[in-house]
């Protein structure tokens, strides 16, 4: 193991920390002074993973799968778990944690948002939820910066050690974000922005030290069985076997799951003093995309656990094959592949492997350490926050160039922000005359979930008309009455 911090003992560390928090919440003197003085129940945190291209929405559940009316404007929903297993719901959800989260009603899928507004179906419309942006398409602050600027989320008393927004760009080139009341700023990719910079910004104020080296055998075995289980899911779904044999495989898979949990639970908790100390940055991480991908996810996850930030954005753009393990596109570039320039097979492979690769990393390295109870909240860290897998621009089906269509987009939310989101549903937004719910309503809903009041986003744009205003929709839009409003139908 080259990483010497909590990754080595992730589950031990998190479980142990959770237990220690249960034991010590009333002893402020024992809390690490770097941790924000805020109870777990008050925490609202959000991590947005932004997929810039190529969400093949037709490979996910159809809009018609949402059947139960919710509210009065035609929103419909169905329990996501009723639509099938994780792998049938999505070809990129092969990681068993997604099945587990679906089973626990922790994944919400929202379908039917239009982002085709002021700039047409181009790049400009999918800059708003992430640190990504286009310098030619400015004038709107990015979502993350609205949170960053919120005095409700970050009062003036917020310690300087808190990194208000963690921004990670894993794309091939520079990304952009625009702060409220400021101009566009560039966010270099790995080549210009060393992971050590991120590390220092996020964890610089923490005291030094490392988690003692612990026996990782059980963690290791648990991870193996995680992979094995995924292979069984695929085998069970794809091979020519009888229903009776499937039942036998189910039994086998139950043993695998049980044993995986058993291995995970075998790990002893670490000493309380190990929590939230500065992790060790692995050497040689900068030139190894796989390693720094892993590390970014680890660091982001740890940052939320240690309350050194409430907001994170990470951009995944059209990585070329060399950055994605086993992404063999037959020698063509990723960007062209996801735009369908090299045929359906290549496009499909790009989608599966690219999304799948990051979906696995999100599950294994970001979500897994957070899938433990947070303090005495009775909920997991995952449940207490929102993790988004967002893509406002994507193809609907294979073929053609719809690499970042802004119509009828689909968003995935994990967690419930402490019960504030009616999680666990597949929700289809209404559609009238081919026009769907404006994407801004989704963003406002997300801001609402973060606790950002309307007064803080209504005037966030440079022209004073407020964040979430999209002139391109026009006053005759069938859902104009929902402009500036969160989608309360999906909130508690």
């Amino acid at each position: 193991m080259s990483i010497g911090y909590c990754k080595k003992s992730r589950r031990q560390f998190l479980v142990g920390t959770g237990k220690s928090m249960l034991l010590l919440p009333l002893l402020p003197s024992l809390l690490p002074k770097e941790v924000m003085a805020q109870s777990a129940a008050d925490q609202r945190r959000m991590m947005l993973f932004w997929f810039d291209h190529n969400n093949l929405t037709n490979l996910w559940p159809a809009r018609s799968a949402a059947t139960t009316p919710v509210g009065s404007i035609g929103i419909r929903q169905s329990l996501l778990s009723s639509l099938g297993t994780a792998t049938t719901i999505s070809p990129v959800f092969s990681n068993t944690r997604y099945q587990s989260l679906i089973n626990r009603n922790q994944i919400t899928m929202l379908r039917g948002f239009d982002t085709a507004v002021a700039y047409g179906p181009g790049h400009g419309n999918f800059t708003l939820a992430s640190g990504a942006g286009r310098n030619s398409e400015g004038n709107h602050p990015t979502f993350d910066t609205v949170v960053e600027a919120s005095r409700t989320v970050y009062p003036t008393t917020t310690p300087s050690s808190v990194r208000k927004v963690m921004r990670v760009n894993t794309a091939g080139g520079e990304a952009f974000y625009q702060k409220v009341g400021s101009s566009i700023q560039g966010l270099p990719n790995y080549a210009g922005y060393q992971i050590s910079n991120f590390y220092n910004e996020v964890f610089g104020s923490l005291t030094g030290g490392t988690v003692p080296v612990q026996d990782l055998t059980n963690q290791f075995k648990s991870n193996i069985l995680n992979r094995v289980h995924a292979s069984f899911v695929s085998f069970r779904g794809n091979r020519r076997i009888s229903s009776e044999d499937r039942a036998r495989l189910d039994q086998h898979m139950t043993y695998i799951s049980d044993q995986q949990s058993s291995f995970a639970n075998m790990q002893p908790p670490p000493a309380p003093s190990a929590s939230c100390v500065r992790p060790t940055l692995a050497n040689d991480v900068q030139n190894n995309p796989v390693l720094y991908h892993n590390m970014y996810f680890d660091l982001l996850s740890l940052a939320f656990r240690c309350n050194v930030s409430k907001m994170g954005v990470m951009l995944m753009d059209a990585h070329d094959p060399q950055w994605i393990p086993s992404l063999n596109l037959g020698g063509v570039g990723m960007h062209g592949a996801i735009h369908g320039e090299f045929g359906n097979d290549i496009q499909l492979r790009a989608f599966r492997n690219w999304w799948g690769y990051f979906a696995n990393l999100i599950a294994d390295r970001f979500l897994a350490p957070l899938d433990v109870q947070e303090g005495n909240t009775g909920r997991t860290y995952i449940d207490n926050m929102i993790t988004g897998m967002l893509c406002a621009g994507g193809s609907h089906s294979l073929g053609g160039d719809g690499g970042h269509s802004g119509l009828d987009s689909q968003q995935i939310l994990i967690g419930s922000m402490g019960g504030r989101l009616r999680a666990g549903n597949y929700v289809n937004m209404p559609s009238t005359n081919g026009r769907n719910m404006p994407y801004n309503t989704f963003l406002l809903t997300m801001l609402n979930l973060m606790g950002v009041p309307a007064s803080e986003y209504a005037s966030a744009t440079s022209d004073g008309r407020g964040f979430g205003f999209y002139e391109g929709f026009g006053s005759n839009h069938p859902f104009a009455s929902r402009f500036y409003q969160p989608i309360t139908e999906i909130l508690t």
Partner: protein
Amino acid sequence: MKKIKLVQVIIFISSFILIIPFQNCSQFEPVDFASNGTEGEIPGISNPPPTAPDTSVVRGLQVYSQNCAECHGLIDGSSVLNRSGNQINNAINSVPVMSRLRGAIGTSDLQALTNALNRQPEVITNPSTGRATFSCEVNSVSLTPLLKLTNREYRNSVISLLQDFSSSLTSDAQLNSLFNAVPSDVIVQNRDTLKEQNRLITQQGFISLFEASWRAGGLASTSSGLNTYPNTSGCLSMASINQTCFTSFIREFSSRAFRRPVNVTESQNLSTQLWDSSLNKAQQIQFAFTAIVQMPDFYYKAYDRGAPIQSGSTTLNLTAHELASKVSYFLTGFPPDQTLRALADSGQISDPTILRQQVDRLLATTNSQQTIQRLFRESYGYDVYDTFTYPSSFLNGVSTSGLTQAMTSELDTFFTNQVLSRNATFNDLMTSRNTTFSNSSLGNIYGVTPGTNITLPTERSGFVNRAAVLSKRSGVRTSPIKRGLALLEHVLCVDVGLPPPSAPTALPPYEGEVLSTRQATARVSEASGTTCIGCHSRINPLGYPFESFDTLGRVRSQESIYNGMGNISSYLPINTAATTNELGTRAVNITQSSGLSTELGRSDKAIMCFAQHLKRFESRVPVTSSDNCHMNQVLTTLYGQNDNQGSVTDAIRTLILSESFSKWRY
């Protein structure tokens, strides 16, 4: 004195407890060969048992699935196969958990269920040869369930993978200790036979195999064999590996583990799944090794990559690799070796001539010995013993320490020598007196000096007259019932089912009369007017000829009668003469056990039974009527021509070279 008498009475009573379980078992015989016989015909051979209409069987399968499968498992491997309607009724009325079925299963459904549970190969007479054969529907292929590797096969497969790194790894003490600690999957299936399980998986078994795999992965990960691992261009020799190297390793390793080619895309997906750059080389290799040998493509024999025999058909041809894998596991218990893999890669394995050569080659390997042993153990149950408990006066100096193992080993060696070295026919198995063993106690029992290629006395003709088969009951009194039942069920494939639960468990004591074992057995189980006689008139005559052997299998000329103190109080004459209808001839008079084994050696019914055993062992599921054509091909070989039987190895060749072997149906 009174105390001694009381003890005697108790011993006498208890000695019968194990004799009586077949009372009342004749009323609903599922396949009553004898009752269908007519004058001049061969019962059970020329007159097939009534075959249930298909619709009834189909309904029975439904009834079973809805009401029985939850507890008794899938019907093919059901624990209650061959139950009679009476037995099912008894169970419904006496087993608490089945009480919900009372009144729920009507008479017609009960009959349908009985028919489904008693699906037996229909027997007809081939008019051109006059020999009994199975009724055969052309082109039928039996349903092939997904089979997992047995523990033995799993271990062999892991060992095989380790050998690719370094053969020295396979002798690792910890690895072997872990494999030895895996809970046995050789469990009782049908009465008195232990069979390897290809479908059963238990949590403890799964965990144990995982731990052994983890150890194997650890051994591989630090092996010098990494440096020269095939098709990795030596990249594993570096101190650290990148993912490109890892992917090349994954492709080669998973191809061997999955027993088929793994293409670039699949190997890259696997690599993505298993690669963790934060791990060092050894950790990464151990991680990948362990994970891959736990994956379903390794764990299960999945034959589903071939083309349908015709459009829309659910019957598939095996691919060359699937065929190689099937042949290899069947004959050796190991995955395909390098030669087989190469022939599969080139497709040549599908050439019958090449395939036959490979069958011959594999049968000549030492690994095939284990297969032959398992075939015969699972067929004839000679590795199942009563608890060996004998008074010292009875043992007379024979040590029972390690004796059952020696007895089993003797027959293991007998079968492997006969089949693999002597090209034995079925008749040879039933009549040969050749043996090899080293245990002195067994030598004492046989009255010969242990050694190699010994010819035993005439009374030891064939395997049924060997100690492992004869010692079915410990103590001083033999059990003609158990001996006869073993022959009836395992050598003649007649399942008489279990006694009803209402059968009495004790008999009134007999006082003032000393009976031989045979006399006592006949009195309690063959009395006219009782329900017992139905079964026992079939079972007992097959056991009486062996009364010339005591419970250890020693020859005796008279029966010693022991008193309550375990001392001989008197002697009674033995009677080995019997008449049986079970051998395929209407009535055969037997005077001694060697004569019985001679009759068995040429009995169509016994040979057909062996064909069923062979087919079941190959397919690892109970035979069905869909297997009849396949079994008939085997049968033709076994029968031979002009009274010259074909060899067992020829039968195995026939089995593999037949068209059915290379097909699969889901």
